[in-house]
């Protein structure tokens, strides 16, 4: 099978718009990636001409982080694009097999933002920045692909008035894209910010079960600062990500170069906390957690104590032996606060505003789980929290375990132990 002069070697992947093959170019004797559009996607001559025009622009891009487009042509009633053939893995597959280090993530973002800065200067907006369009080659470089081609598709959709539904989930779209407004390079930088958030924090900044919910989140929700979710994240990185995700394009980085510069500054600090590269769970909260929630939610603490009686009893016994556990817990809690930076601040603020009435001692099995009180990160288990009486929503979270959550009514002075046994996923 041939498309133009290109001999198909094998299929590499299939998408809604067409098929990508590994092909051979006999003229230059090299491998190419050949993207062949689905025949029924070639709507009319106008579409073909626009596609070719678009490809010409893209063909002029020459950047180490952008997949080079060699050629376009027509054959078998459709259109094909011959591109640089890369051996590597798209970012979405890379993270599936293991979470990347903060440093590596920042480096990828730096290379992508530099590629975007270059393309934007040439007047080309990508419009479809997502992990599957970022290739990590076997040689260790980062390559941005599908440049502009997706844009041709978008224009087609808009101009052809063809009804359609969105397949997949549009997590990486910018607010202006969702609202159907004119987009410029800053939209691409927003999408890169979404990827950065996801890679650094371990969850997406804008969530939803279906795409209208995701669209609503993108246009309305202010994402929780990465630092509030994981206290080990540097303030500078957290701030950078939040700036990238501003709803108003004027409040974001204005150019890829500006974002690259900010990323470089963060990278130069080089004080990344150690993080083991664990498999990423984008959806820790699943049926299991709801089941547990159903059992425990809205149970006042007295009930919770009863429910976890054997474990709590053990702690109480330890305390009775001389309070050593309590002391240890408190110290460890403070240590956690030192390594992070914000939660010590936030808990201080809380303590200032409300006098502490009770001490909630949260322990978990396994330990080192993140504890959130009313959506605010407090530290890792074991931890003791000084709190005024009141109703709190407690969440305990550890990668690879179902999230635990419950509402607690704390109205007993002194120490209130809470033990959480986390259930592993899968």
């Amino acid at each position, binding site marked *: 099978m041939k498309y133009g002069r290109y001999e198909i070697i094998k299929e590499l992947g*299939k998408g809604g718009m067409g098929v990508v093959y590994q092909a051979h170019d006999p003229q230059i004797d090299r491998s190419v990636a050949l993207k062949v559009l689905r025949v029924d996607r070639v709507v009319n001559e106008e579409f073909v001409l626009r596609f070719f025009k678009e490809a010409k622009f893209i063909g002029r891009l020459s950047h180490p982080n952008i997949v080079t487009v060699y050629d376009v042509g027509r054959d078998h009633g459709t259109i094909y694009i011959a591109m640089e053939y890369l051996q590597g893995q798209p970012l979405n597959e890379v993270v599936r097999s293991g979470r990347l280090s903060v440093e590596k993530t920042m480096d990828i973002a730096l290379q992508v933002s530099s590629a975007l800065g270059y393309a934007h200067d040439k007047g080309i907006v990508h419009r479809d920045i997502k992990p599957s369009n970022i290739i990590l080659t076997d040689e260790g470089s980062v390559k941005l692909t599908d440049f502009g081609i997706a844009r041709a598709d*978008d224009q087609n959709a808009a101009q052809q008035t063809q009804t359609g539904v969105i397949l997949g989930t549009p997590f990486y779209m910018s607010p202006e894209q969702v609202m159907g407004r004119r987009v410029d390079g800053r939209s691409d930088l927003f999408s890169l910010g979404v990827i950065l958030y996801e890679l650094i924090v371990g969850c997406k900044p804008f969530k939803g079960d279906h795409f209208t919910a995701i669209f609503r989140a993108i246009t309305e929700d202010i994402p929780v600062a990465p630092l509030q979710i994981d206290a080990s994240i540097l303030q500078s990185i957290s701030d950078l990500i939040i700036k990238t995700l501003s709803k108003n394009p004027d409040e974001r980085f204005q150019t890829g170069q500006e974002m690259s510069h900010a990323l470089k500054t963060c990278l130069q600090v080089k004080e990344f906390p150690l993080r083991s590269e664990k498999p990423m769970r984008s959806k820790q909260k699943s049926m299991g957690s709801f089941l547990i929630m159903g059992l425990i939610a809205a149970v006042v603490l007295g009930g919770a104590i009863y429910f976890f009686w054997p474990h709590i009893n053990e702690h109480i016994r330890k305390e009775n032996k001389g309070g050593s556990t309590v002391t240890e817990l408190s110290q460890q809690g403070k240590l956690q606060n030192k390594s992070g930076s914000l939660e010590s601040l936030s808990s201080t603020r809380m303590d200032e505003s409300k006098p502490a009435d009770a001490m909630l001692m949260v322990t978990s099995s396994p330990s080192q789980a993140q504890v959130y009180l009313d959506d605010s990160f407090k530290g890792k288990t074991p931890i003791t929290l000084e709190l005024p009486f009141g109703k709190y929503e407690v969440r305990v979270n550890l990668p690879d375990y179902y999230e635990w959550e419950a509402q607690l009514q704390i109205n007993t002075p002194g120490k209130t132990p809470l033990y959480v046994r986390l259930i592993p996923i899968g």
Partner: protein
Amino acid sequence: MMKINYFGKTDVGLVRPNNEDTFLIKPDMGFCLVSDGMGGAAAGELASQIFTETALKVFSADRDQSENRTVEKVKKAFRSAHERILKYVEGNPHHQGMGCTAELIAFHEQGFVIGHIGDSRIYRIRNGQFKQLTKDHSLIQDQIDRGVITPTEAKNHSLRNVILRAVGINESLALDILMGKTYAGDLFLLCSDGLTDMIDDPLISQVLYSDTALSQKTEKLVEMVLSAGGKDNITVVLAEIL
């Protein structure tokens, strides 16, 4: 049984190579429908055909035109078509995204039952009042409702053709059922977005108000769309209660 006059027409338009719209009028069974296919040329045509065939099958099998039975038939037509399309896509995964919008109005002794999914529409003229009975299941309608965009912005929205519900797309089917009484003189218009995207409502109503036969009204609407550029397939079905 009340007497109803029907007339329908579909046109490929001036831009698209094929017609993915389908319509069907069955006066003896008391219903008519319009469906707009999507998901690529072949798939789109097939989806709207599946809907039409399924509805015909359901209404042929049950000639009881009581209100309850009519509601059941409308629901069954949508449900069965939905399942058939899903099953087809399962066996033909390259047709993922195939589905259709659908408007079906069925008449019974006391009134009408409408089944609606997508962004095709049903309007009604009663006592000189032109009213859109169905609400588009589209992204822009959702954003207008939430106050995110204005109706003017919606006209230039790059995702204005994205619909939130369709027959044959998601696992579950969310169907709008509208029921009401009919009165002599009521005129119902079923149409695909090929009409409403190209011509504003006031112009459509002017044509419907004109003292002409249904066939002339239908011709006129299609003609207006074509002279405006006819970017999409156009389908118009009229049903007048006598």
